[in-house]
């Protein structure tokens, strides 16, 4: 790892001010991606600003039809939260399957979304549930937040402070994990909103990162059942192909994970 300067932020405002002072600052949340990348010398920030102890960024609130997870809340806490398990069990389930137990103790929802790894789990939930990403400057709708591989609508120095999820009527998540990294080879999140709309998002599949899956959405709108996807074909064009799986393989995985997610949602 190249040399860097470590700062522990005491508040969101302190973090933003410290970030602005550095030549090439980076925010550090759980560090489960940034630190490995720095160890490989693929990133060399002049300053890292640690958000993990900012109290106003930690915690889970459920009010009415909204679950708000503050950005520095670790995956373990989301997975264990009785409030999340009750309101959106699929979200707690998703958090319980990220990485491994040690990663879940440190990794955070804000860090996952800001990094926008094309195979990360949380982007699928945020897009399928139509969540709102809140920052220290504005609120960003899920549709406007993800901008392709490792790219988001966040401006330089902008900090995700929380994510608000509308509570759906039904939701489920299923992923086929890469056996080594536990990232999603493909993961699919299905949601039926309280107004009856169906939204489906896949991660790990597309060359452009997390994506909505229109053919599955249409089939599930007509009939909310795993069998409704039997005749659905997912086009392989634009899907990822690597040593772990071809585009055709991933296209089939989108369908199969979609079926498992619907079964999980009930």
């Amino acid at each position: 790892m190249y040399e860097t300067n470590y700062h522990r932020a005491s508040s969101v405002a302190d973090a933003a001010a410290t970030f602005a002072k550095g030549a090439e600052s980076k925010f550090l949340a759980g560090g489960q991606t940034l630190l490995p990348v720095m160890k490989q010398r693929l990133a060399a920030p002049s300053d890292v600003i640690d958000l993990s102890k900012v109290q106003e960024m930690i915690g889970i609130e459920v009010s009415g039809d909204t679950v708000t997870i503050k950005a520095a809340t670790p995956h373990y806490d989301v997975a264990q939260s009785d409030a999340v398990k009750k309101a959106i069990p699929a979200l707690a389930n998703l958090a319980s399957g990220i990485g491994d137990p040690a990663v879940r103790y440190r990794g955070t929802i804000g860090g996952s979304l800001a990094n926008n790894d094309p195979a990360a789990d949380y982007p699928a939930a945020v897009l399928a549930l139509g969540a709102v990403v809140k920052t220290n400057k504005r609120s960003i709708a899920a549709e406007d937040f993800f901008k392709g591989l490792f790219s988001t609508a966040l401006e330089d120095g902008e900090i995700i402070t929380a994510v608000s999820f509308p509570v759906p009527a039904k939701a489920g998540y299923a992923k086929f994990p890469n056996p080594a990294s536990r990232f999603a080879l493909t993961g699919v999140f299905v949601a039926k909103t309280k107004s009856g709309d169906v939204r489906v998002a896949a991660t790990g599949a597309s060359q452009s990162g997390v994506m909505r899956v229109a053919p599955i959405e249409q089939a599930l709108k007509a009939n909310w059942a795993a069998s409704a996807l039997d005749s659905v074909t997912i086009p392989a064009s634009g899907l990822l192909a690597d040593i772990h799986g071809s585009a055709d393989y991933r296209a089939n995985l989108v369908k199969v994970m979609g079926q498992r997610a619907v079964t999980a949602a009930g």
Partner: protein
Amino acid sequence: MSTVKLTVNGKAVSVDVEDRTLLVHLLRENLNLTGTHVGCDTSQCGACVVHVDGRAVKSCTMLAGQAAGSNVTTIEGLAKGDELHPMQAAFRDNHGLQCGYCTPGMIMSAVDIVHRHGGKLDEETVRHELEGNICRCTGYHNIVKAVLDAAGRMKVAQAAE
């Protein structure tokens, strides 16, 4: 350079380190606690797992500065004097170690698993929960046996306290 103050195995320590220092290097190189191992460079193997404020985390994926003010327990802090921790004793009795390289991380993760699941542990759960710890000897069978054995011993020990 920064001065990092933390508690390690019950003792308050103050160490001057470069900001880029990882917690595992502070433990091994500054405090000579070489029981915590580095088995990979990619945050995947779990040989470096220690407890930070009661949670089993990878000390190679945390800056030393992030642990400032925290309570850290390493493999050296588990035994009570000459009396091995029940997890250590179970690893010995069940031949849960072959070359021993992954053992410190396995034990620190396993203690955390028992703390979280209590008496409800079964083989499938142990195997699933140990997915962040890699044994290059592939000696998982006896490791899993040791964890299940220790879960029983820790329950008995807890009841006695």
